[in-house]
């Protein structure tokens, strides 16, 4: 994937990097087994630190059988602590996205990690339900390093490899020394009209539907992280160690299944375009929901583990598939930066056609926020991604509040009901319709709507005069591949002077 970069040799004053870079000093290749400064070193440091944050947030759940007796917790206390652990990150991600924009990911993530580590140390000092809940809440803040990890990857790696970098770092996290100043983005950054961008994002119904569906794949994943060890310990009487291993194997699938979801989205899109992406996402997430229902019904240990593993693959792949669709929903609300998203892996290799400038950041958008406050603050990070990512955490909170708090439902009943809710909340996907590509049940508009029409509708005349819409135009051109191969190539004017000679 090495592209000869002639501008490097032409300018002897340019800094030398170990990896080949493009005009923005972003690496154009991804070499996993080096620690070359700054790109690969930043990659390794960021996935390791994100991994540590994930471990600290979800270290308590497998030990709950001991902790609940030690601290005299009730099922309600445990449920509340689980909710607190994922809701903390909702707010932290907002702040993190802004901090990355203002100070850079290196300082932002170092500050966050060093400020949340006292909460991790103080777990040994907890002696009541309240202190336990507060500690899980503050430790959960560290999940916002996801945002800085993806931001960092998007700053360091160019479009063709940013998907891989984002996917591997996010997936391996779910499981420095870089000099940010050297890699400051070049290119024009106009001040976006915040209210306008917010309006485009929140009035785009597709963003809301995707937020809902993501809430019921990633949200379900976070919920399972919180409850599954206790479930196996209590229902099947395995010992604590075994329950912990079984729970760990749920998260372990993230190494490959999430990136695989993204890659699958791209493969399907080559033949069937956006309609293929939507159908695949719906099928995979619905199958995940069915497996979740079965998981709650299965009564024997071996079969339960088998179903859980299959369920984990499908639900995590659905997360990756979601972010194969998100980049196409809106371009103005997509942010200036090539930012990462929630470990959506290769879904972003759709960046084949994009060049490496600011607007081409296909996959990676930061998962920033939760609905009300965050939408306003997340503008520079991509509101659509923020809404979707926020929907994930909101889904986790909702699911735990309804099904896994207190003693209203037995855990197995809660799991089955959660599966039913997954299927129901995936159904609204049939309503997603792109005029230029179609939806699940309808083909593209017969009036010949084009990609340009769709993305240009977000800019008014004044903005177009100032050429603010150029990045969107480029993206529209590159996104024509979403028509799939069955549709003929876009009509090209044959009697005009070509723009590029």
């Amino acid at each position: 994937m090495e592209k000869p970069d002639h501008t490097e040799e032409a300018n002897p004053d340019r800094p030398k990097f170990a990896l080949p870079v493009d005009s923005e000093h972003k690496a154009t290749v991804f070499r996993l087994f080096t620690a070359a400064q700054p790109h690969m070193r930043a990659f390794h440091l960021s996935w390791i630190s994100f991994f540590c944050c994930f471990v600290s947030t979800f270290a308590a759940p497998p030990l709950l059988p001991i902790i609940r007796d030690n601290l005299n917790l009730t099922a309600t206390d445990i449920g509340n602590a689980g909710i607190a652990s994922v809701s903390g990150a909702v707010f932290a991600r907002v702040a993190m996205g802004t901090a990355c924009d203002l100070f850079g990911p290196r300082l932002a993530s170092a500050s966050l990690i060093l400020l949340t580590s006292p909460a991790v140390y103080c777990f040994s000092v907890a002696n009541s339900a309240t202190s336990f809940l507060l500690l899980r809440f503050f430790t959960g803040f560290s999940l916002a390093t996801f945002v800085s990890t993806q931001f960092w990857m998007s700053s360091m790696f160019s479009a063709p490899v940013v998907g891989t970098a984002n996917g591997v770092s996010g997936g391996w996290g779910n499981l420095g020394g870089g000099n940010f100043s050297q890699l400051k983005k070049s290119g024009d950054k106009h001040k976006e009209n915040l209210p306008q961008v917010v309006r485009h994002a929140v009035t785009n119904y597709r963003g809301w539907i995707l937020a809902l569906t993501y809430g019921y794949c990633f949200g379900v994943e976070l919920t399972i992280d919180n409850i599954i060890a206790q479930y196996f310990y209590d229902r099947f009487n395995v010992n604590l160690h075994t329950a912990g291993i079984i729970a760990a194997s749920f998260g372990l699938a993230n190494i490959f299944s999430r990136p695989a979801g993204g890659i699958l989205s791209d493969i399907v899109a080559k033949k069937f375009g956006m309609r293929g992406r939507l159908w695949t996402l719906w099928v995979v997430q619905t199958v995940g929901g069915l497996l979740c229902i079965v998981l709650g019904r299965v009564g024997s240990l071996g079969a339960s583990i088998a179903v859980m593993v299959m369920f984990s693959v499908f639900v995590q792949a659905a997360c990756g598939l979601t972010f194969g669709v998100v980049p196409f929903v809106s371009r103005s609300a997509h942010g200036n930066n090539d930012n990462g998203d929630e470990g959506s892996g290769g879904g972003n290799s759709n960046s084949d056609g994009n060049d490496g400038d600011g607007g081409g950041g296909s996959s990676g958008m930061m998962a920033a926020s939760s609905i009300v406050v965050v939408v306003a603050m997340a503008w520079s990070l991509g509101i659509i991604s923020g809404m979707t990512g926020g929907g994930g955490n909101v889904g986790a909170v909702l699911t735990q509040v309804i099904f896994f708090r207190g003693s209203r439902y037995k855990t197995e009943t809660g799991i089955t009901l959660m599966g039913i809710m997954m299927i129901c909340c995936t159904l609204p996907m049939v309503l997603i319709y792109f005029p230029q590509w179609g939806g699940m049940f309808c083909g593209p508009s017969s009036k010949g709507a084009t990609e340009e029409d769709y993305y240009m509708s977000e800019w008014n005349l004044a903005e177009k005069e100032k050429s603010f819409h150029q990045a969107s135009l480029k993206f529209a051109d590159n996104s024509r591949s979403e028509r799939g191969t069955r549709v003929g190539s876009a009509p090209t004017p044959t009697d005009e002077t070509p723009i590029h000679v």
Partner: protein
Amino acid sequence: MAFGCFLVASSLLLLSFFPEACYGVTFSSLQRTLLVTASPTTGQVLKAGQDQLTVTWSYDQTFPAGTDSSYKTVTVKLCYAPISQVDRAWRKTVDNLMKDKTCQFKVVVQPYSPSSNFSTTWTVEKDIPTAIYFVRAYAYDSNGVEAAYGQTTDAHKTTNLFEIQAITGRHASLDIASACFSAFSIVSLIGFFYMEKRKAKLSQQT
């Protein structure tokens, strides 16, 4: 080959829907033929790892002769009172004794003998959690299946309950370590920012 795998997987799934093979004895079918008393008075608080409790049990002679012919061993257990089971499904009382989680701690196991009066003194172990308890003794037959029981409280588990207080698990050394490491994190962050500022100032001067 793929179809074969599918067959195996689906048959596994189907089989797994059938409930667990063994269905144990139910508590409601047991007779209360043992008389059990324990030393703690109502509401007394025992400290785990320190205090002791004495359990005495014997066979209730008012039952017809031969009722105890199958009893081989007696296990005395510490059981949760209803108030400590509220909102805690992992301590739930279920009639099927294989699934019952009321009595999770074994005090002593003794061979059964109809005429004797057995007594044992037991130091409350360190891993007993803070809760309200009573004492129950199960008589087992030669197959290890429950045959009878006796308990210190009444049928509704409201009388003669005592409390055990668990060890705290907190030590001064852990507290100090937490404080030191936390302080180190904050201080290193401040130091990190200070170094950054200095580097920026130096590079500006050159």
